[in-house]
């Protein structure tokens, strides 16, 4: 749904999206980096599991919630990317029980 304008963006930096390398640009918000990289689904909704993506990009809708470096429910539109950041997309409601590690 988005691409970058032809104006040279910031320097390329590597982050991890769901464990896979993903290129962002210095200065990007996490949300902009993902949108520019062709990501259309940021999370699955907590009740029905429907796909969701940023609606407001200004901190009001909370549709952009992702897990950043292990902390869940961060607003991707308010956080600036940093090299090596680990982003995970969230699916459904979190469990109250500690996840068993396979």
């Amino acid at each position, binding site marked *: 749904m988005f*691409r970058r*304008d032809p104006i040279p963006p910031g320097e390329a930096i590597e982050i991890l999206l769901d464990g896979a390398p993903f290129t962002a640009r210095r200065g990007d*918000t996490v949300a902009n980096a993902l949108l*520019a990289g062709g990501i259309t689904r940021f999370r699955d909704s907590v009740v029905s599991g*429907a796909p969701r993506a940023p609606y407001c990009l200004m901190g009001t*809708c909370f549709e952009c919630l992702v897990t950043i470096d292990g902390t869940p429910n961060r607003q991707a539109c308010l956080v600036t990317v940093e090299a090596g950041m680990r982003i995970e997309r969230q699916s459904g409601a979190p469990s109250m029980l500690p996840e068993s590690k396979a």
Partner: protein
Amino acid sequence: MSPQIPEAAELVIIGAGPAGMAAAIEARAAGTEVLLLDETSAAGGQIWRAVGTAPEARKTLLGKEYAAGAALVSEFAACGAQHVSGVSVWGVMPDENGRLRIGVRHNCAARLIEARAVILATGAQERPLPVPGWTLPGVMGAGAAQIALKSGGLLPEGRCVLAGVGPLLYLLADQFLRAGIIPAALVETPSPHRRTALTHLPGFLRAPTFRKGAGLMARVRRKVPVIAGAEALEVRGDSKAKALRYKRGGAWQEIEADLVLLHAGVVPSLHLSVAAGVPTRWNDVLRCFEPETDELGATAIAGLYIAGDGAGIGGAERALPSGRRAAQAALEHLGHNIDPARRDAARKDWHKADLGRAFIDRWFAPPPALLAPRGDTLACRCEEVTAGAIREAARLGAPGPNQLKTYLRCGMGPCQGRMCAASITEIMAEETGRTPAELGHLRFRTPVRPLSLGELAQLPAGENARRAVLGDAELPDTPLPLPPRAR
């Protein structure tokens, strides 16, 4: 920009948009200590988002008014206010001693800051437009797309349709055109106040916005198919948007779209002011609640002021003098004498910037039917509560939005009602025949931003809190260690 947040300041300003920056500059000119807190990473607010770092070419693309923001951002940077960015403010709480405590989250820890005066300059949020399909990826606010352009240089890829009502639709279409993107269509829904708007035309004709706006609309109409008079909107798609449907003259039409940008104007951000205890009033033209303030921005709470769009929508031009006036009122509260000439100048600038506003407000007002969805359309996106369920609960006798919230959980998700509060009131008004003013809105409470227990646990524990947990047992002065994160 210091990463450290002080524990107290004379004047705290929340928000680094036009109103907040203007207020900071005014207060610094009087020699007051100013702490300005902002959620984004750089000063400018949404209107001048990233203007301090945007490359020249992007500033040209976004237009003169955007580029002009850079001057204020540098003036603000040099004014001597302490600016801390990346801070979420979750509450402003008046205490018994007439001081205000500000709850903030910074670097994943909650903190309290004490202030003698606070100016809320948190601006506006884009009004949610709850049409069927609005939760699909590929649907977002037109304002959101503009933020993506300002802050990241993102442009729509594929077919893009703009829909709804408001000057921003034209402004954004024009910016897209400059960047070589031709929107597939601009679908406009009619304002119910166009006739009364015309009685305010003389003021608008004298306003600087008139010439600018007329030129802009003409440019867009030459290149973009503008479809006026759409009575209803709907987005179609399975896992993402595929088309925008609109009803016109009783018949549905469809336009293919990869990106649907919805807009119905902007409304004041109310969470902080309401949670602090500021009463609200209903604005029947703009169809939104506004905090009750006097003309300077003073609220019912001593020491608490509201400036800019957060006090009532007036745009960036009006936000500047509004910020200066709120700062003058706050300075007076802090014991300063205000030079009458300065006071007068700010008042004159405010009225000058207000010229044309009465026309614009009415010409671009949202049609109420569009704000009160029906059936399966989600009104509350977080808890996925349908408009139909809200209608049924209203018919069953829920007396107001807050009771309805306890029935259905609408407004209890992470956005805390920012996306559904207006729809709940609009739907209840339609179902019960009562006015939005009578019904009121969801009660917003502190903390107005989600805080984790771990973040909250970083707050220094007061004596009462200790007693509540430990009774008379002794506690060491050091904070309790955090439990290891559950894995």
